């Protein structure tokens, strides 16, 4: 399913917060239909890069294009069209605290104004079942949920409109291993049914190895490696050595040898 055309294109991107340089000359292309895993140490700028891909933050230099359209484009209508085809899972969930679980997921569907309320109700229940949230929780407010539940409901909201481009920031952080596996399977199922392009920042090696078609490693303000897991493993960089060849990394990689 992977094509060579770029859905998200990052060109010569620099990021600075005051004198603190986070990114220097980042070039990246997310292909149609692939899962791109974004790894890097804590504070290496994964979240910031993702926010820039979404147009939430402006880079100091360089540009980001989504479907060939620059994010700072003068055509807000076209951009909005693209936005409705993107789903985003924020690192902290970002559920609307004033809305209950049901309305949080229903909100993007209602905004479309083409779906009737009965359809929305069914869809919300499907999404909730997908992330394994029981129906008795639908009337709870975000403040009354556990951390993992917030994550799963945020994922359900990100998937509300069956997006074609999905940004996931730490999708499995805060989930127990079983739920992480369920998440991996969920994504794999969805990918079999529709063409889904995913940009995923994660620290979870299992998820990364199971889902990613390509991996981009962010370290020292640069992308130090970009390619399949095999390519990345053969790159010589201290972070990669630590991350993939530590005890934990070895264990995971042994279980996934068939992927290599």
């Amino acid at each position: 399913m992977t094509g060579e055309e770029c859905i998200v294109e990052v060109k010569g991107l620099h990021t600075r917060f005051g004198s603190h340089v986070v990114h220097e000359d980042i070039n990246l292309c997310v292909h149609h239909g692939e899962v791109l895993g974004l790894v890097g140490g804590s504070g290496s700028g994964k979240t910031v890069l993702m926010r820039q891909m979404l147009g939430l933050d402006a880079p100091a230099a360089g540009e980001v294009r989504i479907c060939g359209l620059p994010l700072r484009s003068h055509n807000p209508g076209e951009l909005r069209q693209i936005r409705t085809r993107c789903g985003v899972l924020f690192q902290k969930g970002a559920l609307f605290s004033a809305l209950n679980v049901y309305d949080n997921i229903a909100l993007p569907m209602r905004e479309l104004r083409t779906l009737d309320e009965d359809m929305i109700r069914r869809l919300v229940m499907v999404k909730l079942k997908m992330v394994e949230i029981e129906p008795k929780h639908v009337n709870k407010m975000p403040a009354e949920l556990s951390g993992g539940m917030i994550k799963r409901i945020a994922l359900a909201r990100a998937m509300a409109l069956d997006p074609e481009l999905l940004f996931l920031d730490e999708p499995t952080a805060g989930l127990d291993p079983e739920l992480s596996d369920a998440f991996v399977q969920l994504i794999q199922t969805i990918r079999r049914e529709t063409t889904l392009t995913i940009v995923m920042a994660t620290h979870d090696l299992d998820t990364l190895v199971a889902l990613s078609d390509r991996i981009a490693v962010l370290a020292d303000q640069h992308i130090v490696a970009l390619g399949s897991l095999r390519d990345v493993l053969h790159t010589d960089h201290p972070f990669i050595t630590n991350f993939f060849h530590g005890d934990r990394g070895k264990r995971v990689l042994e279980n996934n040898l068939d992927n290599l």
Partner: protein
Amino acid sequence: MQEDQDINPIVLRRETGDDGAPRLVLSGRCTLTSLGGRMRSLSAELAGYAADPVLQWDITEIAQMDDVGAVLLWRAWGERRPAHLLLRPEQERLLDRLQTPPGPPPPARDWLWPVKVLGRGAFLLWEHLLSLLILSGQLLLDALYLVGHPQRIPWREISANLYRTGAQALGITALVGFLIGIVLSYLSSRQLQTLGADIFIINILGVSIIRELGPVLAAILVAGRSGSSMTAQLGVMRVTEELDALTVMGIPHSLRLVLPKVLALGIAMPLVVLWTSATALIGGMVVAEIQLGLGHQFFFRKLADVVPVANLWLGLGKGVVCGMVIALISCHFGLRIKSNTESLGEGTTNSVVTSITVVIIIDAIFAVVFSNVGLK
């Protein structure tokens, strides 16, 4: 995300199969983006076909189907699979996922709601009064504790609050006070002129501004300005779990957050009152000089004679009480905020409205209690 998706929506084709049975073949894309506005008409069309029990459904030719498309078919079929259905394995999985329990039931209509609303309101008022009392008691205990342990007095917080609520309020209170003084003086002087009682402008301005307007104006401005910010600050700390972080560190909210605010506003408020009254008097004096030709030296000398100094003490006393009450109410509402944005907005509004109302009630109480003080 290519454009061809939009020009490739679902197509329904009815044909007769090899065995002579009628067959409905669906093809194209069955996704949210490709269906778009056709959702309703398509839904009705599909339901029409579904009414035919012997019809064979063939959905293997659907190129892409997402949850919206699946729900659309599922609903048309009446929430079960038709007797004859041809589908691909991944579509099988998609349809399996649809067998969900129904959503939340619509809330039942309740005919007792007026009674309930009234009762809830009464209980809420009681709850507010009770927790305000508890908070005041806690502050008193904290104050006593600080008398015993003067090294634990939160000086930094007090001085920061003093600066924010007092010093930074000087500009707005001066402007408002000055303008009110001008308006009051202008209106009164016109009336007095017709009576030939020009000289009484000093009595009117002196008593009304020093005793009433100065304190009330300052209190209302401070309630809107500092009260709202105190409530919002505590509310955001609740939303971001900072209050909980303080609790687990063993730092009591009342001692570290509430007491400094109450003390600081209790100190700052009389000073702001003094400042507001002064600027209002200056405003009035300027107009009196222009309109009635009363020189400002004369104004000052006469002011001391006609306005007993008790009025000034009364005004300052109101300032102290109002300041502490405003801070107390704002903190009370701030601590009650739940961790969601709606509650934050509502709490801030309630806090300001309550503070302003209470300021006016306090003013009325002062007026009754001290009715024979400072008036000749």
